[in-house]
């Protein structure tokens, strides 16, 4: 294994590298501290990592591919502006045998090892096809039935149900027995986004709708409930919340985080904006849940999706975004056609009070909120689509973003809502998009944020955001995501900062 390009964009002066800002804290990474880790062993379908985790001295890199032939059908053909931005190489029959893989990267000798490869099984049409689409979630946790903290991962399915894997060494994986989260083998539970441990139990929630519906429903589910088990290997999953928390506008549970002895759960709500619910997960299920954030932190539908949650310095950070899926006719929410709307961020404290970190000031039932960062949504860029991933490294919280303009769905309609001047500005801005444009930011106190880069990593024009960000004893690993699979000139990259 060899190393290659150093990142060339926004390289910091050498003498800045050892300095800390006035907030104190450990050394901060600059863009020049990152280099690309070369590897070309992915199968040709791979274009992203939706889950990567540090476990037992190595990076466990889960990989993923696009779903079967559905991406962009509804939108990408409808506008000349979208041509060339349309993802390709996914969903074609020649990629059918290729599915999710898991690699183990050892930073001490920079060796790679394939530790899991999706089995190939007869697809729903009888043709041989990879079973697993993507490693979508991972957690290291010791449940009541584990002798030590072990690695659990959720493998999203191309056509059927999520499969949980368990590993005690990060090399050998065994399949957990129960499928469908205890709901049966015929229910549509293709994937999970979150795996979180609390009180000796593992928690998750299904996401997506596979059965004939595809990526337009990738974020939604028929079962928006929290599930728990204390014996993941044997299944025994059971629901511990009321479906959708009693609100039919909650379309899925996107994030689950344990914080200060409680579970915090964030829902997707396309009509009114995401919600955050909290429970101590004690007593007999369904547990008592309390809604502590409503209506996308009172921004409304432009914060439909809680994209990321993490705990840092005694607060829970939550980001909100608008899914870009052009969902006309499906649930009547396709505000993305009237975008762009920048990502926002809040932070919640254990007493349920909260602050706006990045976003437009607003009046709320909890008082007047101004962004503590001093920045509007998207850290002052209306084209920052998602605050996608967090990681704490060396005392700093890092945040990875993605972009609207690589896929400007907001220019596919007539935009009768805009004046000529407004529309022209949108077109000009979009035409000025110079891929890759996405960011990595850092903060020491959660309020003062600094850009590590706004121009991505390297010069791969197919990368449009950072999908995984992993802190390790050997450095911070950044995994951008690509519009194209490796068979089409894209594929997965990994960058290493130390």
């Amino acid at each position, binding site marked *: 294994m060899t190393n290659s390009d150093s990142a060339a964009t926004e390289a910091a002066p050498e003498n800045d590298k050892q300095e800390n800002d006035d907030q104190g804290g450990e050394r901060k990474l600059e863009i020049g501290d990152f280099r690309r880790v070369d590897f070309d062993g992915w199968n040709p379908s791979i274009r992203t990592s939706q889950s990567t985790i540090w476990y037992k001295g190595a990076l466990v890199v889960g990989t993923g591919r696009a779903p079967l032939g559905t991406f962009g059908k509804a939108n990408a053909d409808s506008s000349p502006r979208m041509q060339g931005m349309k993802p390709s190489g996914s969903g074609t029959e020649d990629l059918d045998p290729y599915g999710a893989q898991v690699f183990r990267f050892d930073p001490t000798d920079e060796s790679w090892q394939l530790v899991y490869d999706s089995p190939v099984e007869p697809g729903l049409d009888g043709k041989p096809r990879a079973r697993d689409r993507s490693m979508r979630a991972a957690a290291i946790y010791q449940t009541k039935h584990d002798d030590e903290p072990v690695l659990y991962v959720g493998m999203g399915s191309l056509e059927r149900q999520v499969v949980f894997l368990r590993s005690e060494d990060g090399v050998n994986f065994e399949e957990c027995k129960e499928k469908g989260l205890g709901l049966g083998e015929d229910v549509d539970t293709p994937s999970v986004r979150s795996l979180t441990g609390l009180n000796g139990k593992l928690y998750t929630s299904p996401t997506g709708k596979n059965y004939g519906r595809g990526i337009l429903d990738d974020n939604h589910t028929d079962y928006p409930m929290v599930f728990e088990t204390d014996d993941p290997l044997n299944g025994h999953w059971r629901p511990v919340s009321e479906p959708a928390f009693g609100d039919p506008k909650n379309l899925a549970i996107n994030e689950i985080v344990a914080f200060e002895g409680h579970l915090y759960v964030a829902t997707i709500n396309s009509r009114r904006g995401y919600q955050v619910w909290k429970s101590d997960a004690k007593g007999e299920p369904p547990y008592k849940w309390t809604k502590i954030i409503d209506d996308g932190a009172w921004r*409304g539908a432009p914060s439909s999706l809680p994209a990321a949650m993490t705990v840092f310095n005694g607060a829970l950070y939550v980001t909100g975004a608008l899914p870009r899926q052009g969902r006309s006719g499906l649930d009547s*929410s396709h*505000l993305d056609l009237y975008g762009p709307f920048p990502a926002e961020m809040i932070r919640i404290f254990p007493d349920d009070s909260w602050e706006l970190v990045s976003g437009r*000031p607003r*009046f709320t*039932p909890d008082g007047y909120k101004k962004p503590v960062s001093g920045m*509007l949504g998207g850290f002052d860029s209306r084209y920052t689509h998602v605050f996608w991933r967090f990681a704490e490294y060396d005392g700093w919280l890092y945040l990875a973003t993605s972009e609207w303009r690589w896929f400007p769905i907001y220019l596919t309609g007539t935009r*009768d809502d805009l004046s000529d001047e*407004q529309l022209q500005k949108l077109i000009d801005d979009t035409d000025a998009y110079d891929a890759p444009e996405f960011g990595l930011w850092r903060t020491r106190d959660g309020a003062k944020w600094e850009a590590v880069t706004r121009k991505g990593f390297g010069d791969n024009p197919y990368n449009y955001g950072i999908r995984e960000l992993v802190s390790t004893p050997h450095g911070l690993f950044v995994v951008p995501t690509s519009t194209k699979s490796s068979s089409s000139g894209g594929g997965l990259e990994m960058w290493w900062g130390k």
Partner: protein
Amino acid sequence: MARPLFILTPARSFSSVISAMIGNHPELMGLAETHLFFRDTYEDMHNIYRARPQTQDGLLRVVAELGLGEQSEVNIEAARALLEENRHAPTADIFADLADWAGPRELVDKSPMYLSDVKCMQRMHAAFPEARYLHITRHPRSTCDSLHQLINAPGRQKKFVKPEDMTPEKMWLEPHLRVLEFAQSIEPDQYMRLRGEVLMEQPEVYLQQIAEWLGISSSQTAVEKMLHPENSPFSRFGPENARFGNDPKFLGDPKLRPYKAKQLDLEEPMSWDPSVTFSEMVVQYAYRFGYG
């Protein structure tokens, strides 16, 4: 330099009561509807006054109250004369005089007419670069229903209303779009948007925040004064020669009453015409404003 607060809201969106409440803050002075920024000069306003004489009432009452000490019939005529003497004055200069007279209180002004053209808001910004703008929304169904009822009320002149204007796009969406366009041209801390329904349901909660945003006292005493819109000198009918200057319904009963927003949908057709439904764009903007 004065820092007036302009309340930007389409007609029938709580503008009268909200303006009167905010304008009753001890550090503010809520006005009757002056419509001044609808045109560049006072002379330019005369076309409107000729067509709709009542549109002048608000300005006459404000000049009488702030400039001449009280709203009497005599003072209304004096105000009219004073304005005629300055017939060629820019409307922004007249507004600046009102601000001087009201000082140190800052003015609170509203007129649904301002939302008919983004130029009105640009005039405000040019004249008062540090002004603040509070954008109030109301559910599109209740806005449209209320407007339709108003326009079709017995005795109401309909000659100014074209049938093609009686659509949710014209009545609700387009005014809001103009505000959003204007808001892009000013500093973020100059603009706030709020659903009128939540303010009306919990006025104590939101009036205090509005005061905080404006940088004026948000004390309980100040908020308590804001809860009495009826105490404004413009929250009642004026003298016979300038009776109006605001929504007559509000002028007849300006007290704040408990309010509970109705659960309204976006799917059903208009109450007055089953063939008219909300367009997709109206629905999406309703979601954007929190009416999902």
